[in-house]
């Protein structure tokens, strides 16, 4: 008797969801700021100007948006296959390591056109292989992808620290500030006054569009969705859930690895221990907030990038710790989870 049409269900669901989450999130943040005797308008103005007041700041914000968009795109594959790719941070780190390894080759300095491209490809492959490791652990060893991914994150963290403090340490110094800067010729070039490399922006946008296209308009996307929603039943349609899951992990890891590589070549120009900057985990929140759909991801990623970029202004302008942006992110995510839970409960009763 209860007939549900997917399209009708989606539209009303999404509109209600958007307004509820926005209202709840902003309400919670305002309440918190009022109790701290802070004006939400002042904070918003300060963060807004920190992120968007001039092109340098906007391009800085876009340099955060780029890895967020890549990680979120990668996570869309794994979430769609019903997998929690917690190992995304590790995949980003391994991507960054592989990129650095290629750029540290002696031949790199003589071939400035080829090697940055090779390095990006190495990052993509490195992240993809690291993602596949979690998938193989799940398929062959029965290790849940959450635990496998978490374990591999620790391994990746160990490897990056060992490299920075060991074989790749700066001459005479080994510190948390990372390896030596790469030769300038191997950096992704940015026009003057830009803090983001246009190549990185284009790559991220392309990756996102390709992800949306693959998931929404191809046989692979349909099969991925089928596996994510009911892997048992998908077998009856001739689909191999293990293979589809592994492919999703590989693609997700690959995009995270590319994000890691872009952090090396486009942002830090060296390998640092905190190369992932927590963007992988933030990507998880973005995809959850977007309801595991591609459409809203660029906007939500932009909002989080603004928060991260704008929060730098808080200690300078208002003598407030920049961790306030983390509180705002948390409030948004909790609101989203609350609204999602409430809607699910309502739908079931």
């Amino acid at each position: 008797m209860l007939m549900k049409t997917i399209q009708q269900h989606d539209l009303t669901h999404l509109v209600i969801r958007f307004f509820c989450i926005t209202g709840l999130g902003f309400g919670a943040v305002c309440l918190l700021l009022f109790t701290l005797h802070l004006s939400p308008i002042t904070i918003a103005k300060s963060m807004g100007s920190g992120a968007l007041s001039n092109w340098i700041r906007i391009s800085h914000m876009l340099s955060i948006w780029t890895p967020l968009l890549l990680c979120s795109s990668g996570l869309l594959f794994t979430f769609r296959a019903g997998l929690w790719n917690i190992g995304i941070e590790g995949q980003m780190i391994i991507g960054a390591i592989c990129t650095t390894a290629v750029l540290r080759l002696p031949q790199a300095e003589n071939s400035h056109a080829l090697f940055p491209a090779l390095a990006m490809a190495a990052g993509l492959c490195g992240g993809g292989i690291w993602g596949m490791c979690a998938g193989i652990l799940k398929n062959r060893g029965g290790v849940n992808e959450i635990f496998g991914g978490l374990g591999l994150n620790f391994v990746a963290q160990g490897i990056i620290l060992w490299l920075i403090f060991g074989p790749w340490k700066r001459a005479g110094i080994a510190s948390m500030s990372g390896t030596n800067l790469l030769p300038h010729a191997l950096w992704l070039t940015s026009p003057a006054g830009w803090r983001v490399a246009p190549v990185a922006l284009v790559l991220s946008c392309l990756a996102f569009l390709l992800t949306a296209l693959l998931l929404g308009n191809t046989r692979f996307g349909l099969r991925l969705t089928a596996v994510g929603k009911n892997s048992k039943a998908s077998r009856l349609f001739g689909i191999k859930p293990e293979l589809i899951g592994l492919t999703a992990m590989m693609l997700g890891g690959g995009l995270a690895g590319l994000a890691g590589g872009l952090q090396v070549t486009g942002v830090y120009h060296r390998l640092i221990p905190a190369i992932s900057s927590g963007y992988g985990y933030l990507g998880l929140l973005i995809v959850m907030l977007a309801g595991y759909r591609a459409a809203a991801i660029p906007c939500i990623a932009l909002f989080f990038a603004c928060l991260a970029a704008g929060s730098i202004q808080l200690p300078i302008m208002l003598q407030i710790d920049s961790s306030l942006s983390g509180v705002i992110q948390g409030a948004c995510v909790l609101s989203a989870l609350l609204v999602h839970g409430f809607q699910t409960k309502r739908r079931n009763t």
Partner: protein
Amino acid sequence: MTLPAPDYCISLFFLFLQVQLFSRNDPFPFTMIELIDIHKYFGDVKALTGVSLQVNPGSIHGIVGENGAGKTTLMKVLTGYIHRTSGSILLNNEEITLHTPMDAIQLGIGMLYQEPLDFLQLSVLDNFMAGNERFSPETMSRILEKLSKRFGFEMQPDTPLHLLTVGERQQLELMRLIHVGTRVLILDEPTTGISDEQQELLFSALRSLRDEGCAIILVSHKLDEVDALCDQVSIMRKGTIVGHQQQPFNRNAILQAMFDTLPQKETAPARHQGNKEILKFTHVCSSNGRSGLDRISVTITQGEVIGLAGLDGSGQTVFLRIAGKLLEPESGTLQRFAAEDNESDSTDSQTVFLPADRLNEGLIPGMSIREHLLLADETPLVIFPETGRQKAKQAIDKFSIIGTPDTAADGLSGGNQQRLLLALIPTQARLILMENPTRGLDVQSGNWTWQHLLDQMPDNGAMIFASPDLEEILDHASRVLVFFDGKILLDSATSDTDFDEISQAITGRIKACS
């Protein structure tokens, strides 16, 4: 005038009381639960429209209706799983409010689901204790033993639940509900997927609970069991009650109230049987399931419709899943189709398996009818919103599915889900494997399913189905294989056997066939 002696007065009073109380047939003359004008809307969809119902203590009240009539929704309202849009529920003449299932349990209203809602990872005793505030395994074990004896159930407290059959899990759930003080017991299709013996045990337990004054509501579409068990029956159709009857029931009147037309039974058409092998098991062994498979050797040729009978977990499911290549045999060989056929087409695309648990194993919740058909067919590499829409519309018409191409599989009623599953059978399928094909379907939908299956079965193919309903096997199969403890005890043409012989084989009372 002399006044009567006081003891005479007392005797007279008790005599009067006895006459008042026991002059009626009904020993519990009051209404225990009353539903008044219940409405339930899901958005624009009216699931229940003005349902009113009275259930007395000490009676078993049947609720019948075709799939999608609103029976399950009504019971979910009564157990607090979903909230009614309007209407009242009275318990012992007092209005009650049910926000959650816990409210219902505290008021003594409990429900036994078609698939018991239990914890498969835990033991029998753990499940029995679940929900109890006090943790006292020894006491609870004694209570469980006492209740098992009382109802004639056999249950070991330490047995892991996943080793129990659905019927045994139902027995455990029934005891748990009785222990927590359930006085209004609701059963939703309780005999689906359980053996005849377990059904008899369940019925006898229900009769004894009725005699103790419990009000029992039995939701079913099987008129035989309603006839055997219920004192009254209410018929539901399109979200409302369209009739009531007291024993003895008029079956034709019930069927007419349930459906527009009286359902006609479909019989298997005469089919040419060839010698070409479709499926051959040679000494196949497996340790999967409860009994596994013990050196099964059987050959199925084209044109055969095979019915698999046996107690739940006797090997039929494992047999079907090995035939469908969803499980690998541990030893022995399996051959599908004759060798010369294998060259022309992939054997996988010629084999189809329809599981009993449609929504959990056969369909994909959240995906639309169009998407299901796209997946089942040769899926194009690139998919646009209109891809497959026309085909989906055709399938909806052909299979009389109530829905649109964008309707999600989980939004369909049980009968429509089965129709969708049938629509997914590829035209080239030559080996159709099914677990309980009419599970949870009303007579009309069940008949439709069989009509379609028998019409669609190709002459060069074979069909194998497992069913707990022997009548279904005798009506539709040309050959029956009876499983007991992982072995085939009886392999016979249905024309050469009967209900009694199959029943004996099911319980292991005949020797295994060679």
